[in-house]
């Protein structure tokens, strides 16, 4: 017996507006909409709807909306509808529940419990429209020895760094999990913005070698697509130890998404599930990580910074301290709200910790140990707005990774069904008819718009604080105050409560 589950969302059609043009039918890869030739009317099967809003957005007469179903089991604060439904689904299938994108559960969002300072009287706010305001940064090691040449000039003893015109990068999303067009949009936007995008663990399509100066390539546990040209065509190399959405497990790309092109780029067979292992099987300890860091540096002649990316977990501070002593130039920390193309629901929703808390602890720990200059810190998962960026930098981050926000700019509506491979927006799919819906010429401009807008907002907020360089905001925790937080939360975040003076 398969238990019938009433659809979570219902498609509502305003019959007075519907002109039966069948756009919705053509746009829906989930086959929700259908046309009845006899009555000349459209109908919808809500059970198939993932609530991606493609039909709502494209309906020329705005006849469609999606509403949350009001069907309910007997109301129970412990056993809510979703919990009950998930039990039914597992009893039906015997399978692990799969989900996509970030943790949607109502956990506290610490960004929203922090407030930013502004100048009044004793020092002036700075007007970014009239004065220079700097958001350019360099990522990498800053620990240096001072050496001088025969003229007494300082020698460049710095390890290679990445120069970012804005403190925002696009986080790792693999070709395979997202489409060719999505990748192209990200790469071109990174180039125009003077920042970086990240290949994820899916290799680098040869067409995108030309964006190498703005590309971070990932070396993950499956080593997909890793070879000489891949490393050489990158600006930096990221070792992926973990991902915020699924700490402690590897990746899973369904065979359906492994088309010929994806297969060639990943260097794996076509149509077969690509499963990357939970650990790197050559890294069972911190000293092993050091060997991989230096292997990659040797392979690229010490010309590229190496990033080590970890998921935010309970012991993040100590782990980061170990990484900072292992030759890495940059540590990327991914919070438990970070997105994913596919993850077991239970892991996505219950494993890991908020990025805000992990960042606060990692930054402080590295300073306590006097090794903050050994690495830059990049945080993601999830950074939703320029205000989150400002707060992250004030907390101690050097820059932020954005993934979900970038996909939203490309059209994603967070239906959280990426793992099904039928993304109506042409993002998380490999179906050619769907991929072509995402026009990279328009997509990259939307990404440039988004980050440019954030950059303006970051400048405004910095100017308000009387700060004219993002360097002077980094780690400037006195600029933050907590609201609605406990003493323990304030202690962990290393900030004072709103109303407490300087």
């Amino acid at each position, binding site marked *: 017996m398969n238990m019938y589950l009433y659809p979570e969302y219902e498609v509502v059609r305003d019959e007075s507006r519907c002109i039966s043009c069948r756009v919705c039918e053509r746009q829906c890869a989930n086959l929700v909409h259908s046309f009845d030739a006899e009555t000349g009317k459209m109908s919808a099967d809500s059970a198939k709807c993932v609530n991606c809003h493609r039909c709502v957005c494209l309906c020329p007469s705005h006849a469609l909306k999606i509403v949350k179903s009001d069907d309910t089991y007997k109301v129970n604060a412990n056993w809510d509808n979703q919990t009950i439904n998930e039990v039914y689904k597992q009893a039906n299938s015997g399978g692990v529940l799969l989900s996509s994108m970030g943790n949607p559960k109502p956990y506290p969002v610490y960004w929203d419990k922090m407030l930013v300072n502004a*100048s009044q009287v*004793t*020092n*002036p706010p*700075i007007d970014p429209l009239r*004065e*220079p305001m*700097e958001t*350019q*940064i*360099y990522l990498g090691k*800053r620990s*240096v020895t*001072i050496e001088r040449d025969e003229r007494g*000039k*300082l020698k*460049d003893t*710095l390890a290679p*760094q990445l120069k970012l015109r804005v403190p925002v990068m696009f986080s790792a999303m693999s070709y395979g999990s997202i489409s060719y067009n999505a990748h192209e949009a990200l790469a071109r936007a990174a180039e125009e913005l003077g920042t970086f995008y990240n290949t994820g663990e899916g290799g680098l399509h040869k067409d995108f070698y030309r964006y190498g100066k703005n590309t971070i390539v990932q070396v993950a546990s499956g080593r997909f697509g890793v070879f000489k040209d891949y490393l050489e065509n990158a600006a930096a190399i990221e070792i992926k130890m973990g991902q915020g959405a699924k700490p402690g497990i590897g990746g899973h790309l369904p065979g359906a998404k492994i088309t010929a092109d994806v297969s060639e780029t990943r260097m794996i067979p076509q149509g077969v599930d690509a499963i990357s292992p939970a650990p790197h099987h050559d890294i069972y300890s911190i000293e092993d990580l050091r060997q991989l860091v230096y292997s990659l540096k040797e392979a690229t002649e010490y010309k590229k910074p190496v990033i080590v990316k970890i998921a935010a977990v309970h012991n993040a501070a100590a782990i980061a301290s170990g990484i900072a002593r292992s030759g890495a130039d940059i540590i990327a920390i991914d919070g438990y709200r970070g997105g994913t193309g596919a993850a077991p629901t239970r892991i996505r929703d219950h494993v890991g910790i908020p990025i805000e808390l992990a960042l606060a602890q990692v930054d402080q720990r590295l*300073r306590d140990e*006097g090794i*903050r*200059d050994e690495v830059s810190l990049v945080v993601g998962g999830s950074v939703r707005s320029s205000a989150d960026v400002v707060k992250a930098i004030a907390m*101690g981050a050097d820059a932020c990774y954005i993934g979900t926000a970038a996909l939203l700019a490309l059209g994603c509506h967070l239906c959280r069904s990426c793992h099904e491979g039928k993304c109506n927006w042409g993002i998380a799919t490999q179906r050619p008819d769907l991929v072509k819906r995402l026009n990279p010429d328009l997509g990259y401009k939307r990404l440039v718009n988004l980050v440019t807008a954030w950059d303006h907002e970051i400048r405004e907020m910095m100017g308000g*604080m*009387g*700060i*004219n*360089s993002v*360097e*002077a*905001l*980094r*780690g*400037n*925790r*006195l*600029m933050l105050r907590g609201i609605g937080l406990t003493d323990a939360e304030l202690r962990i975040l290393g900030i004072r409560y709103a109303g407490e*003076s*300087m």
Partner: protein
Amino acid sequence: MLMREGQFRNPSGCAVTGVIDRSGKPMSGEGMIEAIAVMHDRSNGLGGGFAGYGIYPHYKDYYAFHLFYDKKEAQADAEAFLCRHFEIVYSSEIQTRKLPSVTDEPLIFRYFLAPLPQKLRNSHLDEREYVARCVNRINSETDGAYVFSSGKNMGIFKGVGYPEDIGRFYRLEEYGGYAWTCHGRYPTNTPGWWGGAHPFGLLDFSVVHNGEISSYDANRRYIEMFGYQCNLQTDTEVITYIVDYLVRKRGLTLEETAHVIAASFWSTIAEKGETEREQETLLRRMFPSLLVTGPFSVILGYEGGLMALNDRLKLRSMVCAEKGDLAYISSEESAIRKICPDLDRVWMPAGGEPVIFELYEKGGRAQ
């Protein structure tokens, strides 16, 4: 109860001024007192102080420590510590003049010290680092004792009151020094603790500063990685530590230090000549967390010279002037004109442009 300096962050507006005779000829502290008195309204009676250089010629080879004691027991504790780490060559209470406008003064003592050779050797530290750490330990660990001056052949004199009163209180007209700096304070709080007045000093560095820096916590959290403890939570303290770190510990020149603290904007750097561009870019990439933003005008005193530095937007006033061997720096030109009406040259340095006046024997020259 009001919190004491160091238990909260205390920004303040201020007046600063300084003078140096580049020929090395000593002058009394009287001129500084007259100059700062002109800027009376830039202070509010909650702090004033002076630094004099070349004032202890007879003890120039010894570290001159000036200490405040809140109570007699603190003196016993601090002196026990000093005896364990230094030979005390000479010590006495600092002579002061009772004034109705200066009240609640602590006990104020002066010591001329030489590090105990055996102790210094065993510490494996450079002599100055040894002294700096001793200062840090007294200030952090000895309740009621505070070292507020620790350089050679220089001294800081400060307290709660208007600066001109503080100068007279310390009888600065009786001292002769080749350089002086002075500070009148306008704190936006009322701690009333003498240790919280300025200049702030470490070894022979002294800093007077007018402003409120917006980068404070970024700078503080960075510099504290290198053994400094920002106990007072003032801008002046953190700026002093930044200078000490970059100049004494990392070996940067004062100009290079200025390019870190008040770095040119990237857009300005891009327009500079190749060497300057490379050097300034390198400095910003090496020490980005020591960039100081927000308004400041700083006078740094050190053995043999003074450096004036404004924030890169020049959000605080600062004027420089020259008359023969004499060079002046001040928040307001009026203070300079008061003691030297007829000047050879007066100018306002641009934001982020360091102005350095040094003794001729150190290679100083007219600007």
